[in-house]
Structure formats: structure tokens, C-alpha cells
């Protein structure tokens, strides 16, 4: 079967032209909310890709769509050489859809395999340590659930051993296995959530704002744990967050999103050192730096106005309404991501 055929690739996960639209009813009309609009990126085994952007830019949706927790509108996702979604659209090398003679997009066969086997390899850690754990379950049952679902043990004793092992791995006291989630602090709950994700021994974890809700001192504990687990287990992360300093610290590469589109992808240090896209520039300059001396001398590029509503997106480049460099070309067409050397990809006509 085509689906089973392994293609050799340096990437663990490849996302191509992912689109996730949600119908939104406005009175009697149904409008499409383009939460994720034509996003492509790839992650190597054991790598961390940071995904940053402001609220409503679609970064959380990217994480959920690629795990097919939503039904993506279009796109092709390959994991470990296997296709886990292909809606069949064809694209040319410039990223434009291939059209047939009548102007309709050419469609190949759509592939949508059962996600169940993939769930053992791709997991997710959630933002809210309060709502992501079932308050009526003990820690043991929460961590044990993936083991139960994928039948990863042969006896009750083995199940318990595995759970205790996982608790130890994330730094939880094994004595607390029979306690309920609400008895723990935010940081400990997040550890429980991580242990649940690790139970199936995945190769890839989506960390959706996994440290955003935690206090600074606890945040560092969890960030460190993510890094240590990566060294130990070789998992790859898609680390979604809005805190640029944390993302910079943990990521190998960073992708910046604005209104459903990726505007820049680069190596973490490269992106922070020499950002190219005007949005990335202002985003980085706006980060409050915890250092009085630097803060006094830094010059913020304060963006005018607000993010446009995703229901009423500007034509062409979505950032053009707030961009100092916007030209007519920006209004006409969305710039494609182009390589500016060393895999530093930027989607901008003018920079």
C-alpha cells in the first residue's frame, strides 16, 4: 500500500500546506474562519521547533490539527515516513496550487488512515494544568490511561511499575499516586500531564503553551525537565508559546506565525539575533527584558493598531495593515516563504 511505503527523509514530521478553516455563523451567513492558512514546516527527530505568535494567530490550532484532533481542511502531513493525512491537493514548486484547464485545482487521491497507531507516537501536553486533568481521577489512573488504551502491560503489577517509573521520571513523589489531581500545585499537575504524554513512549510531543500558566520559578523547573527528557529519550517537540524568551531558550528553530500564516522560520539564535520579517522585528523588540540596563536603552518598535479580525482578513499579506514597509504588491499577493540562507525562511516582499 502506498500508505505503508517508507520514504527516507531527514525529517520526523512534515507538514505541507496545512489549512484549518472553521465555519462561523454570522446571522444567516456562514463565514470561514481561516485559523491556519497554508502552513508548512518540518521537524527533525529529537529537535525542538518553537512556534510563537500572538493570541488568535492559530498556533494552538496548528498543534491540534496536525494531531488530527480537528479535521484539517486541507494539507498533507507525514510522520516517520508514513502519511497520516493527505487531502490530495497538488502544489507546484512555488507553493501555488496546480490548476487544471478549467481553473479548478487538481486533486489527487485523499488518504486518511486510522489515527490510533499514530497516537502511540505523537502526544500532546496542554496549557492549562487545571482543566487538562480529570478531577475525578487519581494520578495513577491519569497516567495509566494511555497504558490501558494501547494495552501496554501484561499484568496489574506491570502497569503499576510503569506508572511509578513515569512518576519518578517527571520528578513526582510515588507516594502520591493515589491522590487526586486537584491536590497538586500547578507545576506538579503539569508534570502529571507530561507523564501521561510520555506513557506511550512517543517520538514527538506537541507542547501547547505548556509552561505559560506556571509561575516563573516553576516554569524553569518544567522547561528544564523538557530539555532533560529530550536528552534522555530523544523526543522531538513542537513547542508552542507566546513567551519569546522561553521559546528562545528551549528551541533549536523557531517559527513565527501571524494570522494563520508562518511569516518566518529560522534557527533560534539566528532569529533572535538577526530577524528579517518586520513583524518578527517588532515582536522581539516588544519583549519586556528582565534587565533594567538593557530595558532603558532598548528601543521598542511599537506597532500601530490592532490585529485584524481573522474573519475579515486583509488581502495578500495579513501583516500589511500594520507594516511600515507595505506596498501595493503586499495587498495583491501573499509573499511565499523564501530561503535567505542557512534555512532562514522569510515571507516578505520587501525585506
Amino acid at each position, binding site marked *: 500500500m502506498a500508505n505503508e511505503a517508507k520514504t527516507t527523509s531527514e525529517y520526523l514530521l512534515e507538514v505541507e500546506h496545512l489549512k484549518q478553516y472553521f465555519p462561523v455563523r454570522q446571522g444567516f451567513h456562514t463565514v470561514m474562519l481561516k485559523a491556519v492558512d497554508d502552513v508548512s514546516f518540518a521537524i527533525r527527530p529529537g529537535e525542538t521547533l518553537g512556534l510563537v505568535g500572538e493570541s488568535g494567530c492559530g498556533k494552538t490550532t496548528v498543534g491540534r490539527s496536525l494531531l488530527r*484532533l480537528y479535521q484539517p481542511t486541507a494539507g498533507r502531513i507525514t510522520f516517520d515516513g508514513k502519511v497520516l493525512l493527505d487531502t490530495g491537493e497538488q502544489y507546484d514548486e512555488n507553493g501555488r496550487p496546480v490548476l487544471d484547464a478549467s481553473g479548478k485545482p487538481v486533486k489527487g487521491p485523499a488518504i486518511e488512515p486510522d489515527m490510533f497507531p499514530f*497516537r502511540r507516537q505523537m502526544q500532546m501536553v496542554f496549557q492549562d494544568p487545571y482543566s*487538562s486533568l480529570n478531577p475525578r481521577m487519581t494520578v495513577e489512573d491519569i497516567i495509566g490511561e494511555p497504558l490501558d488504551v494501547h494495552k501496554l502491560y501484561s499484568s496489574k503489577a506491570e502497569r503499576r511499575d510503569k506508572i511509578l517509573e513515569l512518576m519518578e521520571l517527571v520528578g513526582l513523589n510515588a507516594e502520591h499516586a493515589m491522590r487526586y489531581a486537584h491536590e497538586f500545585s500547578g507545576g506538579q499537575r503539569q508534570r502529571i500531564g507530561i507523564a501521561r504524554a510520555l506513557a506511550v513512549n512517543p517520538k514527538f510531543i506537541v507542547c501547547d503553551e505548556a509552561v505559560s500558566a506556571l509561575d516563573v520559578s516553576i516554569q524553569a523547573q518544567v522547561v528544564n525537565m523538557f530539555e532533560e527528557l529530550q536528552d534522555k529519550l530523544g523526543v522531538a517537540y513542537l513547542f508552542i508559546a507566546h513567551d519569546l524568551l522561553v521559546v528562545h531558550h528551549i528551541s533549536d528553530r523557531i517559527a513565527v506565525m501571524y494570522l494563520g500564516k508562518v511569516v518566518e522560520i529560522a534557527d533560534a539564535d539566528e532569529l533572535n539575533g538577526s530577524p528579517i520579517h518586520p513583524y518578527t522585528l517588532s515582536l522581539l523588540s516588544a519583549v519586556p527584558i528582565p534587565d533594567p540596563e538593557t530595558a532603558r536603552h532598548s528601543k521598542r518598535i511599537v506597532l500601530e493598531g490592532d490585529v485584524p479580525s481573522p474573519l475579515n482578513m486583509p488581502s495578500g499579506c495579513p501583516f500589511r495593515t500594520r507594516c511600515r514597509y507595505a506596498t501595493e504588491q503586499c495587498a495583491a499577493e501573499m509573499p511565499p516563504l523564501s530561503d535567505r540562507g542557512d534555512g532562514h525562511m522569510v515571507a516578505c516582499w520587501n525585506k
Partner: protein
Amino acid sequence: MQGTDREQYKKRQFLSAQIDLSRFNPSSFEKATDEEKKQQDVMGESTTFFRDGMRRLRKNPLAMGSIIVLAAIILIIIIAPHIVPYSYSEIISIDGKRDKSAANLAPFEYSKMEQQYMDRTGEKLFPHIFGTDSLSRDYFIRVIYGTRVSLSVGVVAAIMVLIIGLLYGSIAGYFGGKVDLVMMRIVDVIYSLPDMLIIILLSVVLDQTLEPLITGTVFARLGVNMISMFVVFSLLYWVGMARLIRGQILTIKNNEYVLAAKCIGTKDRQILKKHIFPNILSVVIITTALQVPSAIFTESYLSFLGLGVSAPLTSLGSLANDARSGLQSYPHRLVIPALVICLIVLALNLLGDGLRDAFDSKLN
């Protein structure tokens, strides 16, 4: 760094001016062990959600009072028929002869025949605690049986409403989309029917259709009216329950732990069983508890209209209805069943509120 050194020197200057070091001894500055530190940092006592809720419930005097009242009522209606030598349908008779003078007795009053009998034999007859009715039946035992009927109608109706509502609501809520749309429109249609009219029509129709169906079965003992009452309640009142459960499931479904379960690969049925039901349980129990008094009310109301249980079986509502005719001379016959209804309904409502305060996580 020079700046740091200067800062350090300054700090020492400041400190030595403020602190008298002689009051410290070196052992104070030994490093504390991890053990010692841990003692300071205790995790609170382990409590489960249920235990926590029960503790809150116990602190609520109104709810606890209601539990005591309800327990007392239930105890009385179970035990009393074994002690009181009269039956709810029995017309009082002395030595096999019908006691015509025993009609409309006041509480604790004996009829002429009874008085004569007691004088003659020296034996003490059991008093008529609430007197008797116009057909010379002991009123106390009738109230006891009326309460039994009313309570069981309430409880059974609430449970039936729960079962239907739970099934319907959880299917609509969990699957959402078109399924939900269609199912909820049906609910809307049922909601838009005037419920009293339907109840009255249904109970009339059901009486006739059910009669041949149940003769000879266990249900026959309950009486057609009682059965039709259950059916009417469950057919009408499940819509409210279904709506509530659907709403609850929609809220719970949006929690990240449900998404996490999907991400793990948990099957729909397991998600419902392990993640959704346990979390709506408290709300469901509370609503069911509050459904009981409303069913009792409706039953009483129907019986009052003469559509309730059939004679000689009685309910609190039909007792009140019967008492109307002699209202001026025997007001206690209306007051007693009315009071019992009030007591039960009030206690159940207060208990339901208490349960909600104790267990509904949204309020905590």
C-alpha cells in the same frame, strides 16, 4: 567586578551598623538538612472530591435538618403500618359489625361503639391519631399510605426522568453537530406543548389502554393510575433533564482532559464513561433530587383534580381533595396532608440546594 566589591563593602557597612552579632551563635548558621526543610513543607491531607463535599454538607444546618426530617418521614411510613392495627381501606368495625358512629371522628376521639366496647371488655383500642374520615376509615393510616404513594411516585418518576434524560442528553451532547440539532429540535417541540393539558389527556387515555395490558401482572397491584402517572412524568419531564445533561456535556467536552483523552486514542464510549459521566454526576444527582418534589407536586395536583391514583388507594393530593367537602367542619383533614406535602417538598428542596452547594464544583 569593582562595582560589586564596592556594593559588598557598603552592604557590610550598613549591616554592621544595624546588627548586634553577639546575639547569634555559629550553630544558627549551619545549613539546614533537607529533612528539616521538608518538615516545613507539608502537603495537605488527602481528600477525595466526595469526602470534601460530604464535609461541606455536614456543615450546612438546613441540609442536615432536611435529611433528619426525611429520614423520620421514611421511618414512620415504613414502621407505622406494622403498629397501627387499621388498614387504609378498612372501614372501622367492632366485633365484625360496621361502626357507623365512627365517621368523621376528631383526632384521638373514640366512637360511641368503640367506647362501649372498651368499657365492656376493659381492653384499650388503638387511638385514631388523626381521627377518621367520612367513610369511617382511620385517617392516620390513610395519610401514611398517601405519603408512601406520593413519595414513591416522586422517586420513581425522578429516576425514570433521569434514565431517559441521561441517554438522550448524552447522545445529543457528545456527538453534537446534526445529531444534536435534530434531537434538540424534538425537545423544543415537546417543550412547546402545554404540559398540564398533555398530562390530563395522557392520563385519561393511558388509563384505558393500559388496563388490559397489566391485568394479572405485578403492576396491577399498583393500579393503572399509578402506572400511567409514571409514564406521563417520564414522557414529559425528561426534556428538561435531557437539556441539562446536554449542556453539561457540552461544557465538560471542552475541557482539555477530554481532548487529552482523544489525543491518547481513547474510544468515544470510554471517554463518556471515564471522563464525562463522573464529572456531570454531581449535577445530575442534585437535579434528580430537585425533580422529586416537583413530581410530588404534580402528582398531588393531578390527584386533587381526581386524575390521580384510584380509590381505595390514596395519595396526599387525593386526601386533600377528599377533604374539600367537609372543609368547614373538619379543616384538619385538609391541613394534615397539605402539611406533609409541604414538609417533604421543602426538605427535598433544601437538601437539593445543600447538595448543590457542597458538590457543584462551579460554585467552589
